[in-house]
């Protein structure tokens, strides 16, 4: 997602978690080659004393869950917040851009995020449908039913994730709650297949882009985390996952 921040690529140094993930997997090196590979990977990090143009530190534990309200991934507020109001815009250009977004999204400035109701929920995409994402979403869904006004689907990030999730029985939790359990694929992340929104439909989506028409012409996409999406499916509107009652 570094593209969304204006970069062409991003690099993350491999750590213990990365190594533990790769070990024993298909195509992973074995035996002596494994040891050599791990030693090599551990060298793939910033030099001591490396100088950066800017350093940004984010303490994710202190952040509220975020929900996008507009038509690019930067148009985002905490779930406890509200849709921005035109009267708070800094200048005419901003007012015009935000006005256009609000019109497309069918939102009134000032509406609390938790008062926004959804028609569809999409838990999927390679970015946010890993095994741990599905575990987190299933924890939320467990013991609940999807709101009768919402159509919700879960699309595992890959066939391997799908198989692993089924081994853990996650698919049963989703199905019992009324989610569709689908084959892996891009699905509603970009809507090249028939998995699209109808014009005006509103979707809580764990994909990574919310441009106009991304999930179907006239479709209104709100990007959220897998847990937030599962909670929205049950509640029928966005809700702060920090207050969720887990079963």
């Amino acid at each position, binding site marked *: 997602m570094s*593209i969304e921040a204006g970069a062409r690529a991003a690099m993350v140094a491999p750590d213990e978690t990365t190594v533990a993930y790769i070990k024993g997997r298909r195509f992973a090196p074995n035996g002596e080659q494994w040891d050599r590979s791990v030693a090599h990977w551990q060298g793939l990090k910033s030099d001591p004393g490396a100088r950066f143009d800017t350093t940004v530190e984010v303490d994710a534990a202190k952040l509220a869950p975020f929900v996008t309200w507009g038509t*690019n991934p930067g148009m985002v507020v905490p779930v406890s917040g509200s849709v921005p109001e035109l009267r708070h815009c800094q200048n005419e250009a901003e007012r015009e851009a935000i006005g256009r977004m609000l019109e497309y999204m069918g939102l009134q400035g000032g509406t609390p995020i938790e008062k926004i109701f959804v028609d569809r929920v999409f838990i999927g995409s390679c970015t946010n449908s890993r095994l741990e994402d599905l575990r987190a979403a299933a924890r939320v869904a467990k013991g609940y039913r999807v709101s009768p006004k919402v159509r919700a689907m879960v699309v595992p990030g890959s066939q391997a994730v799908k198989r692993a999730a089924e081994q853990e029985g996650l698919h049963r939790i989703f199905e019992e709650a009324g989610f569709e359990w689908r084959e892996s694929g891009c699905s509603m992340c970009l*809507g*090249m297949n028939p998995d699209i929104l109808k014009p005006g439909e509103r979707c809580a989506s764990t994909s990574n882009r919310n*441009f106009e028409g991304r999930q179907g012409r006239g479709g209104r996409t709100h990007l959220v985390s897998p847990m937030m999406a599962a909670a929205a499916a049950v509640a029928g509107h966005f809700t702060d996952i920090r207050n969720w009652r887990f079963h």
Partner: protein
Amino acid sequence: MQRFRVHHGKVAPLLRANIDTDQIIPKQFLKRIEKTGFGEFLFYDWRRTPVGSLDPGFVLNQPGFAGASVLLAGKNFGCGSSREHAVWALAGFGFRAVIAPSFADIFANNSAKNGLLTVKLPEAEVNEIVRRVEGESGYQITVDLEQRQVFDQHGFSARFEIDDFTRHCLLEGLDEIGLTLQHEAEIAAYEERHALTPK
């Protein structure tokens, strides 16, 4: 690749900021394997009504802007999904240059590799061109890459920055393959030295 040296053409204004590649060419049209044929899908959801007919209100459908070859846009043009099809769609529609206050990096790079010139001008100068477009129907402009200059016949003129390498490639019509093939003799000699001879 088509060379870009000096281009003179009609200007069409599409002055929204952050025009993303999903607007330039929606994803359902990315299934072709050729680089051609994307022009008719350019700005599809803006150019066409939900039933597929041309929307007469959209700038590129207005008779006054028919045949425009220079697009004027808001800042951060070409952001979003990194798809080269966005450039192919603009070029296929007939655009040779896009003028905007800023461009998304990947889009700008893709443009240079497909003979489409991205001209970055300060917002004030873009706005000045807008005024001239509004004041004169069929307004035309000259984009001169040799002189790094944009000008019209009524006294407007602005210089723009472009790095020497990108400029060279556009002036000579060289994409990466074209650049590589300039060394064809050396490549052939190398291949000769490393030829796989059957044993």
